[in-house]
């Protein structure tokens, strides 16, 4: 089995020959509808709505984060987002329902399941 880090994609090129700007790399990612990670400093420069992206959400059962935090290597500055106040993840809108759930639907399903066995209407209706 190969060493895992050797399989990690290096991200945008930053060598003298073939240097790619953060904006150019992000444009490439958006064109290919890739997942995008940005640190707290770089995310202010990315308009995810304009590019048909949504913020990735995953409930945090410990409550330490609001659920919207995603860490990794920032696609713009290439720094570890853990060291930059935490990052954000952006998913292409068309892939959103395949990889994560929005917080409102999680709350709705949990509430329905909690009340299901207790409801008089449900018991009478015998679904």
């Amino acid at each position, binding site marked *: 089995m190969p060493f895992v880090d050797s399989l*990690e994609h290096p991200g945008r090129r930053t060598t003298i020959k073939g240097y790619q700007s953060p904006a150019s790399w992000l444009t490439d990612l958006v064109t290919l509808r890739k*997942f995008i990670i940005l640190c707290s400093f770089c995310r202010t420069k990315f308009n995810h709505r304009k590019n048909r992206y949504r913020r990735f959400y995953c409930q945090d059962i410990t409550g330490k984060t609001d659920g919207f935090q995603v860490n990794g290597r920032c696609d713009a500055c290439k720094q570890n987002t853990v060291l930059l106040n935490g990052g954000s993840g952006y998913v292409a809108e068309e892939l959103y*329902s*395949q990889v994560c*759930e929005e917080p409102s639907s999680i709350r709705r399903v949990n509430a329905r399941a909690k009340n*299901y066995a207790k409801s008089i209407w449900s018991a009478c209706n015998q*679904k």
Partner: protein
Amino acid sequence: MILAYPMSGGAENVRKFKVGISFTVAGVPAIMSATLPGVVLPSTTVAADAIGVTTDTGTYSTTQGDAEGLVSVMWRPDNVYKALMSGAAAAGTALVKLVNTAVDTAGLTVTDADVGTADMDGGTLICIKGANLSQSRVVTTFTSGASVAVTVPFLNDIAINDEFILIPYADVGTGAAGADGNSAVQLTSDLAGANAVIASGTGINVVVVEVVVDPDDPTTKSYVLFKLADHVYDIDTI
């Protein structure tokens, strides 16, 4: 499949990996390959050395000048994933609804030829219509093409036309035959869902954490939540 939550909480971690095969669907497991130059897809039954689940798609190319294929992976080994259960090998098929044909005043046995032939001993029987609505029990006896029985009785009698769904998963068990509903999930043909009409204990190695049944639409909106058991950062190979 989607990310439900990391078991120990905190933020999700995502890394971009080079691909050794094209990923055409998002939300599928990615595994290590001994021979190909990147992460690859598992089969529906084997996902040894999994690295996580993808959040986008990627195209593999061996043509000079093409962009190097990459795919983003949620790689935390404690991630719990949520897969939609399907009533066939193809994703998105409704689960089979069992309609009881014989009264059981002991509350133990559901009789219906639709139980099929795949051994669900170790799975879960969930009532979706009748006096035992929303109750679930682990299956302990499976009679092919005829009935399923539980050891802990349902609270009320099982009447004719009571409806149930039978799934091969349970959040309890030892992994041994007859108690193996918690140890495996077979993937659907697109690798993004869970094939719920196979025998319990069949599929990729996982730890089943929870089964979630949507009360409004139990046959098409029920999920199994699991953690990848054979994760490259967790255990090399089971």
